[in-house]
């Protein structure tokens, strides 16, 4: 069933399951991904995604349907993920990651090009994790999840100008981190954008 977002929200408020499903279906993956980037654990991320959707649904009465739904849902998921990360404390996550990384097989010697790109993306994630939290968040929203500046501003409840300045600062810091600690990423960037250096 097709409907405008406002119609769908009104119908979901009235208890229309299909309308709610139609609203959230395209957004579920982004919520999971955002939570995963923050929490670094798929099970925790799935919990956050579920809780964000449940909270959104319970708060649907209060939602201003003239606003876009995506930033609102992502804001709920981001807050839940941050709170959960604080509760979990980094050490516990570090240990679970350590256990998992120890149990994962080493990558095969001859990686396909696709596998190399994905490995680089993993390294990039590790580099982003060295940024301050605000910098991490803006990079996740803008580049990992492709949010526009307006959407990022809505998620973070900050002016668009602050998104710009925060992004610029994060990029400068990230560039320095990559130059210093991520030789392969640096080589990849330099190889792709030699004239811009």
């Amino acid at each position, binding site marked *: 069933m097709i409907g405008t977002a406002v119609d769908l929200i009104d119908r*979901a*408020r*009235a*208890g*229309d*399951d299909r309308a*709610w*499903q139609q609203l*959230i279906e395209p957004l*579920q*993956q982004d919520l*999971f*991904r955002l939570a*995963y980037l923050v929490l670094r654990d*798929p*099970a925790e*991320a*799935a*919990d956050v*995604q*579920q809780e964000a*959707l*449940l909270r959104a*649904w*319970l*708060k*649907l*009465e209060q939602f201003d349907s003239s606003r876009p739904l995506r930033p609102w849902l992502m804001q709920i998921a981001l807050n839940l993920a941050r709170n*959960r990360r604080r*509760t*979990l*404390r980094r*050490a*516990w996550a*570090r*240990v679970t990651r350590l256990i998992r990384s120890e149990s994962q097989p080493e990558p095969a010697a001859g990686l396909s090009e696709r596998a190399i*790109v*994905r490995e*680089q*993306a*993993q390294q*990039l*994630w590790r580099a982003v994790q060295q940024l301050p939290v605000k910098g991490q968040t803006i*990079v996740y929203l803008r*580049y*990992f999840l*492709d949010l526009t500046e307006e959407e990022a501003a809505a998620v973070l409840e900050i002016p668009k100008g602050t998104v710009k300045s925060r992004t*610029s600062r994060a*990029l*400068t810091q*990230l*560039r320095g981190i990559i130059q210093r600690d991520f030789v392969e*990423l640096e080589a*990849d*960037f330099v190889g*792709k*954008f030699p004239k*811009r*250096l």
Partner: protein
Amino acid sequence: MSENSQNGFEQWLAETAREFPYPPQPDRSVSPSITHRRLTPRLAAVMVAILLVLGLLLVPPVRATLREWFSIGSVSILIDTTAPTPSATAVPLSNLPNLPGRTTLAEAQAQANFSLAIPDELGPPTAVYLHDGVGQMVTLIWVDRPLLLHVIDQNMILTKIGPQSYSEPVSVNGQAAYWVSGTRQLDLYDQYMEPIEGFRRVVDGPVLIWTNDNVTYRLESDLSPDEAIKLAETFILSP
């Protein structure tokens, strides 16, 4: 970074980030959808409130299916639904457990980086232990009461307990606290997730966890919740 350089870096960043291999999303038995066609958000909120009022969420079998975290002060507790039931049985506190770092109360008070005031009504503890590692934890045992009290500084202690344990929020002197009960194996870890050696025990008595002045207290006893809270409040009133 120059504008050109930043644009190039931004483009490279977006292209690389787009390839990030997100893990598959784990299945969840509870759908995020509205599970009942006639259930509206308002009605659901009312139902949740009613359930809370009725205390149904505190029924052990219901809570036992939840996988949850909670933190109080420097103590974080994971209820792990996959943890097996402890095979050993709890040793009563009247049989003094064999814990590391035995010392005297005076020495613990001198070494601890927090105030260690004991309410007069408890009298001197039977045994005192000081763990002085990444963080500090003083353990006091009164075998005749019987009581075991962990006093923990600001450094994190994490405990992982099994699905047979139940927790509920309570209040000590108006501050958030937790009452935990059920049989569980108690493992303590410091903030680097290093196990605090020698403290692994099976616990089957209730525990009250509360905080005061950046110090976290964990009290094992056979007291009722009200009695334990009353005792906890005497710690807060102590100098």
